[in-house]
């Protein structure tokens, strides 16, 4: 039989992250919907993949507004086959909503990393206002657009800030998802169900090393006196 079989498609699906994501969503579209664990795994793999793609072209995104970057991310999720939407109403406005069959849901809040308190606002929006707290809506993400260098230090700082706000957080590194990514585990205020949020740092820091530096100003005579 010279035709492509499901076995061959599965093998193709193992050749790259993109192929793996596509094979999963293709199966779901064709009548084999996922369980929540598989849904979250594939969504987060896709989000991490997109974050890596964004980070490869930092000059394209440096200085862009949050909404602009997030809109493009949602578009990319749709290309992967997800039912993804931007800025829909789920208990309030939510930056990213990914659903399957109206049954499985993954939410994300997107923020430029300007300060930890700004991120915390986003986290609270995600956790208390948007997350349904139901088992099939208990997973979500923070998309953290880092236009400053040293994403690793930014994430450590962010974790420290989160612990200062609530000492019950438990963190789990997720380097397999994305460099410096981690997940935070907490209990939903609404329903008491465990909530897990994966924090995706997207490095859009851009300062080309070969750009000529500006000459230093001479010290004024006034300053010396």
């Amino acid at each position, binding site marked *: 039989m010279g035709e*492509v*079989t499901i076995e061959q498609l599965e093998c193709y699906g193992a050749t*790259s992250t993109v192929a793996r994501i596509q094979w999963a969503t*293709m199966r779901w579209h064709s009548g*084999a*919907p996922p369980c929540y664990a598989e849904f979250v795994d594939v969504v987060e793999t896709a989000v991490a993949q997109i974050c890596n793609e964004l980070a490869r072209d930092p000059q394209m995104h440096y200085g862009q507004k949050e909404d602009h970057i997030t809109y493009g991310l949602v*578009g990319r999720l749709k290309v992967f*086959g997800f039912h993804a939407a931007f800025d829909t109403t789920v208990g309030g406005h939510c930056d990213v909503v990914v659903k399957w069959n109206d049954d499985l849901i993954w939410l994300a809040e997107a923020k430029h990393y300007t300060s930890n308190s700004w991120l915390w606002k986003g986290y609270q929006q995600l956790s208390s206002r948007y997350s349904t707290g139901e088992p099939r809506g208990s997973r979500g993400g923070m998309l953290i657009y880092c236009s400053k260098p040293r994403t690793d230090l930014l994430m450590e700082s962010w974790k420290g800030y989160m612990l200062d706000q609530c000492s019950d957080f438990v963190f789990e590194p997720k380097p397999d998802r994305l460099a410096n990514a981690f997940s935070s585990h907490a209990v939903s205020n609404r329903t008491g169900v465990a909530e897990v949020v994966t924090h995706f740092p997207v490095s859009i820091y851009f300062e080309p090393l070969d750009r000529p530096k500006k000459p230093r100003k001479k010290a004024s005579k006034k300053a010396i006196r």
Partner: protein
Amino acid sequence: MSELAFLSERELLMCEKLIEVISSRLASRAQGVWTYSNLAKWTGSKVGDPVFMNCVNLLAMHPDFRVLEMHLLFFDPEDPESDGIPLDDEQTAHALAADGFLVNPRTGDRVQNYKSTIVPYFKPSKRLEDGAHG
């Protein structure tokens, strides 16, 4: 940023070619069977070429641009003359599930290595058919 901004120029061209082929086949009486191999042949591509695969998958999955639906044909290894038996929705769901299986419609036994006996093919999505006949 456009929703399709992530597509390369090659991918955009491939999508155009695929849509052209699909539209002309839909209009003609000889629709053919839209397997990956046939779609590759009709667009001058190769199965396994990531550009081709990405585009077929996009057209079968994108929530806003979905024009294809994947279905499955079962070739019974114990019936070499078989033309392929289309699987119904329930059989498809079981075959594609993560821990899937396939029951041979003839014998009622589970098919060993069933994934090598199933060929996916595409049909126009409802949206495309409604558009074509509307």
